[in-house]
């Protein structure tokens, strides 16, 4: 395995660990503004735009909230959306792709010739935006929004798996051991699930890893556009959105940098893992 794969795995583990133990790792309440007493006037003030310090590791934002704690809690949202989307869309995609590849004929014509093309005809992000926008009523609760985000990203995500799976099943179906099973009278379902699936699934692991990066990025994009969890819930996309006002940019650039770096590292990590796995699984593609 190449070195980048290990770097990616390390970052991904840190990310997952952070997300799971967010409430333990966070040093402050992610929603509560930090107050302090101004010694000169002896009044209560909000700690706005504080630079990184020992108390607030990544500084504070425009409302005086601890950026590090918000970042850590934001990882939780990214991970929840990422894992749910990857799992659900992989299951849907694998089943539909396998059916198309295994049965062929008009089922395949309909699925790969028509349904896949329809879903690929929408720019993915646009479809996700539209679905979330239409599903959400006037005041969605965080749980509803989370569900809508996951639905929207699954609707756009499953086609990728289905296409890969279809190609794989088409290939594996013709192998001798499958022919042998068929000759021995194995039922269609047995051929598909016992003989074909386990031998066809490898490239989908790569797909899943790359899709994880995509899902985290899409969630952040939708949050950035105001279609993520409603404020004050911390997500990386909303943090970046709040950090891009000229006021915040000039006074506290770290508000933009830390969530930006966290997002980039996470996306990078899952891309590294995907590329590493691809090279490992397919020696022909190893770098020349």
């Amino acid at each position: 395995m190449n070195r980048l794969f290990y770097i990616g795995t390390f970052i991904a583990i840190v990310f997952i660990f952070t997300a799971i133990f967010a409430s333990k790792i966070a040093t402050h309440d992610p929603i509560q503004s930090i107050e302090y007493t101004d010694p000169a006037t002896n009044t209560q003030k909000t700690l706005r735009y504080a630079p990184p310090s020992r108390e607030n590791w990544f500084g504070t934002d425009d409302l005086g909230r601890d950026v590090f704690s918000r970042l850590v809690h934001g990882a939780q949202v990214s991970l929840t959306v990422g894992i749910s989307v990857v799992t659900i869309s992989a299951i849907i995609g694998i089943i539909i792709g396998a059916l198309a590849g295994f049965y062929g004929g008009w089922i395949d014509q309909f699925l790969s010739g028509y349904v896949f093309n329809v879903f690929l005809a929408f720019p993915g992000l646009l479809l996700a935006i539209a679905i979330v926008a239409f599903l959400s009523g006037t005041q969605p609760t965080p749980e509803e929004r989370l569900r809508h985000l996951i639905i929207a990203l699954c609707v756009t995500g499953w086609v990728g798996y289905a296409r890969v799976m279809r190609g794989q099943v088409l290939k594996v179906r013709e192998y001798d051991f499958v022919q042998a099973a068929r000759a021995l009278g194995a039922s269609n379902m047995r051929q598909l699930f016992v003989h074909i699936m386990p031998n066809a699934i490898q490239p989908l692991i790569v797909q899943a890893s790359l899709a994880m990066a995509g899902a985290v990025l899409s969630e952040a994009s939708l949050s950035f556009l105001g279609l993520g969890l409603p404020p004050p819930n911390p997500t990386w996309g909303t943090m970046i959105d709040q950090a891009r006002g000229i006021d915040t940019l000039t006074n506290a650039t770290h508000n933009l940098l830390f969530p930006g770096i966290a997002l980039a590292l996470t996306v990078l990590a899952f891309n590294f893992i995907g590329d590493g796995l691809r090279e490992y699984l397919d020696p022909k593609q190893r770098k020349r």
Partner: protein
Amino acid sequence: MNKRKFLGYLKRLGLLVLVVWTVVSLVTLMIELVPGDPALAILGDQATPEQIANFRAKHELDSPAFFFSVGGENGFKWNGTNNRYFNYFKGLLTLDLGNSFRTDRPVLDMIMERYPATIKLAIAALIIAVFIAVPLGVVAGTNKNSLIDNAASFFALLGICLPGFVIGPLLVYIFAVKLPWFSPTGNLYPEDILLPAITLGAALSAILTRMIRSSVIEELGEDYVRTARAKGLSERVVIYKHVLKNGLIPVVTILGLQLGVLLAGAIITEKIFNWQGLGSLLLDGINTRDHRLVQGCVLVISVTYILANSLTDMVYRRLDPRIRLS
């Protein structure tokens, strides 16, 4: 044109029509996803029943959604042709996308005001991406594993993992706040397009750089390159006349497919730079719950994307005889 080729064209055209029809249908029926009454969402809780009834009548919200409805007390019920789905299609034939819930203006007019700005931005992004990627990819590919190759790979990696909504504000910070070279938002001066176009084109230029690099490396190993070199052509001519010509074929496909990504990415870029295009119109529609406007924007962006893809497909077939003949 022989018969088989003609049938092939016909099949692709048929598929195109089918896909467009499905996309339009999905967009048309999307409004049914909205929980509760769209009229109530627009008019608010204070609206009188009369106001709501007027609004529903004006925007045809009280006619049935589809040809038939299932469920309720009557079970299956045939609604006839006076339904929203059919009427939306009928409107489309006369280029009528309905009226905005908020402003009551025709949605098509609102879209057409903004459409050129988005296309301008997408094309500018495309040009910037190609201008960065082609030289970088060629230099990286011809100097494999050198320092410059690694630098190009690093740049490409940055472009892929840093999303536009991080790059954009960073550019604003550097080139509009720290160095007052550009205005941070808006579209007043011609040079104002530069920052948004770079933001939008960054990811594309990264992908292109990678593709051109590997494409150049692959082509350099081909026999025709050895022949060209053997007959004494300079390395410049070999690379720019022979290698690049073949190496750019996959790039054309990517460019076409990426146009859709650019159109979707433009939504984000337009928000960052307050660029008055289709993307910011769509976001306005979402924020004001103007579902008719959102429908129209999604429809126009999707159809543009589909047409761009089919066009690419055609260009690709022209460029590569191997595909044209198969």
